[in-house]
């Protein structure tokens, strides 16, 4: 499931990230925010009136805002969390 489709406030973890679809600056910033395969994530809020605004996502202990096109590059799973890579 994509991060954009993840129901709000349902803990999940990152399965894969399509780094290719992100520019190098964006990819780097997301990595610095702690986004990586295995990281625990939780979608907190959808911004924008028609649901097309950014997404507030909790990555580990940090809350960050990102646009939907970036969040769509992140595949998540809500199953039992695998060992941290």
């Amino acid at each position, binding site marked *: 499931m994509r991060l954009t489709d993840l129901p709000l406030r349902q803990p999940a973890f990152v399965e894969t990230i399509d780094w290719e679809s992100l520019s190098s600056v964006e990819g780097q910033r997301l990595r610095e925010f702690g986004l*990586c395969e295995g990281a625990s994530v939780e979608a*907190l809020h959808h911004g924008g009136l028609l649901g097309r605004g950014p997404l507030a996502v909790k990555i580990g202990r940090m809350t960050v805002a990102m646009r939907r096109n970036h969040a769509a590059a992140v595949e998540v799973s809500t199953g039992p969390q695998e060992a941290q890579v």
Partner: protein
Amino acid sequence: MSGLPLVALVGNPNAGKSALFNALTGARQKLGNYPGVTVERKAGRLSLADGRPVELVDLPGTYSLSPASPDEQVTRDFVLGKQAGEKLPDALVIVVDASNLDNHLRFALELIALGLPTVVALNMVDLATRDGLELDANVLAQELGVPVVSTVAVRKRGLDHLKTELETLLGAQTGMLRASAGEPDFDAVRREARRIARAAIVRETPSRRLTAAVDRVALHPVLGLALLLGLLFVMFQAVFSWASVPADILEGWVTALGEAVTNTLPPGILHDFLLQGVVGGVGAVIVFLPQILILFFFILMLEATGYMARAAFLMDGIMAKVGLSGRAFIPLLSSFACAVPGIMATRTISDPKDRLTTILIAPLMTCSARLPVYGLIIAAFIPARSVGPGIGLQGLVLFLLYVAGIVGAMLAAWALRLTVAKGRSGGFLMEMPKYQWPRPQDILIGLWQRGVIFLKRAGTIILATNIVLWVLASFPHAPEGVRQSEYSIAGRIAGGINVLVEPIGFNRDISLALLPSMAAREVAVSAIATVYAIDAEDDAEALEQGLGDRLAGRWSLATALAFLAWFVFAPQCISTIAVTRRETNGWKWPLFMIFYLFVLAYAAAGVTYWAAVAMGLG
């Protein structure tokens, strides 16, 4: 550069570097809660326990040593000793947020690997406790291989311990320092940071998270937007309703001062100069101090509580439509107070086209210097009646003027992004800091600084422009029956300008005020006050009247509205033009900015005037 040992505070945005800097040096700077408020070099002096002075520098926050924006580049260059005019720091204080350890430790590890003498400040332990986290600083020190001190910057806890550790570091130094950034494997460092964070956490109990609870409302697509608009609306109502009592008191003082001048000085040129040029002119601006302080109070509160980043989140959708990101909203919102710090705050925007566009539209945000102009005209022409529960007509008009500025800015951004700043949008990635209840001292100090700046402006730029204007408006003396303001040199210059602005409904009073108010917008008010004082010299009755009443008697409503519309757009501020030149490295963009804003101002005033006349308000 001083010969003192140089120590740099470095770490992620919002780790508390600036708070620690203030606590350690006693110096003050603006405290914000959105990532990257520190964009200028901030240095202060710190005395170690043995009395030795040390120069402490507060570096811009960054997430790693790979810079993504101009201010992050400064941090990288500084810790590598490559920043122009700076030596390599003698020691680093790495500030980490105890409640977000995994993330901050990764950057800390990168910094420790530079090989400089280092101490880690484990800051915000109070917030970690609030979130149910208990940490062991000793374990952390062992794992990191550098001393670790627990601190609470805002409560000044742990500072002595930090100073002791610094003293040891600086005392033990021998030989030449070198800093070298390797190319560490990002994922390996991250895993290491995670492992260490896990090891340092003694206990983790789930607790109610204040931030998550508030965000359910503040970031809600409907409620959040309503809250943001509500906050802004309350802010503008407050500017009028809270300020009226202190403003009346100030006005009383200015009047008393004028009377004192009249009573002590013999009639003559000195008397006229002081009464008309100084007390009348500058006094007319100073009475707006309470309104400006109220406006800054709101802006400072929004920044210090962490709400600003939420506002950016809410606005991103709209900003994206004009090719900007929510991040640009933060400098724009600060520009409500003043465009100069707003334009400087654009340094946190990494995309150059985004940044240029934000700089070019920042002057459209209604800054506090417009308040005297708006305040005067609104008070004179808009009746102070209520148009609904808690909604005053005057506050509503002021709110609409702010909205006009915002809408103008959005349209301008959209047009700029299609033309001179063409390019792909830079995206929106931003940390949302935790909510904080700001310390009253910080807010009071911020207000104090702003008040001093405003009074200094009144005492320098506004006074000087006004003196020149007084001289030009007082000579040569008009013969009997001719109005002084028309006969004087200033009057003749105004006559020339009047030809240009008559079509948009401006009268000679306004023409006279336009040129001097290029220096600063408030001068429009002091200039009109001065000219009226000169004209009213021999007319005791006119002198008794307040400025607003005199305006109301001489201008049509259509003219007054056109004048307001002009000031929504006109780039009348030397400081803004200067800072734009500095931030864009040349005259090209400031000149472009002046040109496009004057065109917009002219058009807006014209449309307003013609529409008002058509509606029978001329």
